């Protein structure tokens, strides 16, 4: 039994893998609880319903249980588990006609342009845009401003939902789930440059939506 697993932070891969191989239920439960939410969010980008996402994550974990003896440690355990998830989700997505073509990730069709580079308004005299983003640091969630924090989170969730699949998957892995760029490249089998382009477009889109939001509500600086 691995006591440290209950604390939130996972022990090193070799410890976790050894525990799984010996049938340590607490270790498996800790992994399920640590990664399943992120896996569900990711699976949801490939399939059309929450129930399908639950099934995808279930099938991925079943494959992990079956395959853990064969895990060779050539990637991190997290990367390995997420690759299994992506493969499972892709197969399911194909069945649902929601296949996502990663090989054409540079193709621009149907993707929102970089909202930050649109000449949507003219800057003020000194090059500073007028309006609510004037003192940007004051706009973000602080404990005494929870209502605003909640609104901003809602706006960001909406912005994420409006992204093309591949951009949403990359920004979800990187910025929401906290994966490194190396992990994302390995999980999705894309190049570092490709990953960066998708991430940048996604971030620019979200930033642009938030800017529009603050312009609309006219929050004073």
């Amino acid at each position, binding site marked *: 039994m691995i006591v440290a697993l209950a604390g939130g932070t996972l022990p090193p891969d070799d410890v976790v893998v050894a525990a799984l191989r010996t*049938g340590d*239920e607490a270790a*498996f*439960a800790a992994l*399920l*609880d640590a990664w*399943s*939410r992120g896996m*569900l*969010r990711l699976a949801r980008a490939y399939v059309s319903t*929450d129930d399908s996402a*639950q*099934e995808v*994550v*279930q099938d991925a*974990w*079943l494959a992990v*249980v*079956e395959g853990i*003896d064969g895990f060779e440690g050539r990637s991190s355990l997290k990367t390995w588990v997420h690759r299994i998830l992506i493969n499972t989700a892709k197969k399911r997505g194909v069945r649902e006609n929601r296949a996502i073509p990663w090989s054409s990730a540079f193709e621009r069709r149907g993707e929102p342009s*970089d909202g*930050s*580079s649109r000449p949507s308004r003219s*800057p003020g005299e*000194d*090059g*500073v*845009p007028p309006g609510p*983003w004037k003192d*940007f*640091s004051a*706009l*973000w*969630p602080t404990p005494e401003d929870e209502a605003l924090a909640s609104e*901003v*989170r809602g706006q*960001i*969730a909406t912005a994420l939902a409006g992204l093309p699949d591949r951009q949403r998957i990359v*920004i979800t892995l990187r*910025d*929401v789930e*906290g994966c490194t*760029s190396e992990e994302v490249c390995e999980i999705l089998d894309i190049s*570092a440059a490709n990953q*960066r382009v998708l*991430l*940048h477009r996604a*971030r*620019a889109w*979200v*930033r642009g939506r*938030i*800017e529009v939001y603050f312009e609309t509500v006219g929050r004073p600086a």
Partner: protein
Amino acid sequence: MKRFTHNRDKAVNAVKRFRCAEVVELVTAYLEDALDEPARLGMEQHLACCRECDRRLDQFRAVIGVLGALPSEDGLRGDVRDRLMSAFRDRRHRRP
């Protein structure tokens, strides 16, 4: 260019000189530390004298911060979690 007027006495030509539109496209590469040295220096020089781009960089950082703090969605359904735990137990029994 208007935005460089604050910096007219500095040697802005010593490194690559970026326009705002170029800086916008390089924000993520800059944050990932994926720029080569001349590009990074050019970026920093531009940011030092262009309030708009500097603010946009802060906005990117703030957006990234909020993304990382989004509340979790619902986790595994109870029945799915139970099924997985029992599959894990079964596996152990199959391979004592």
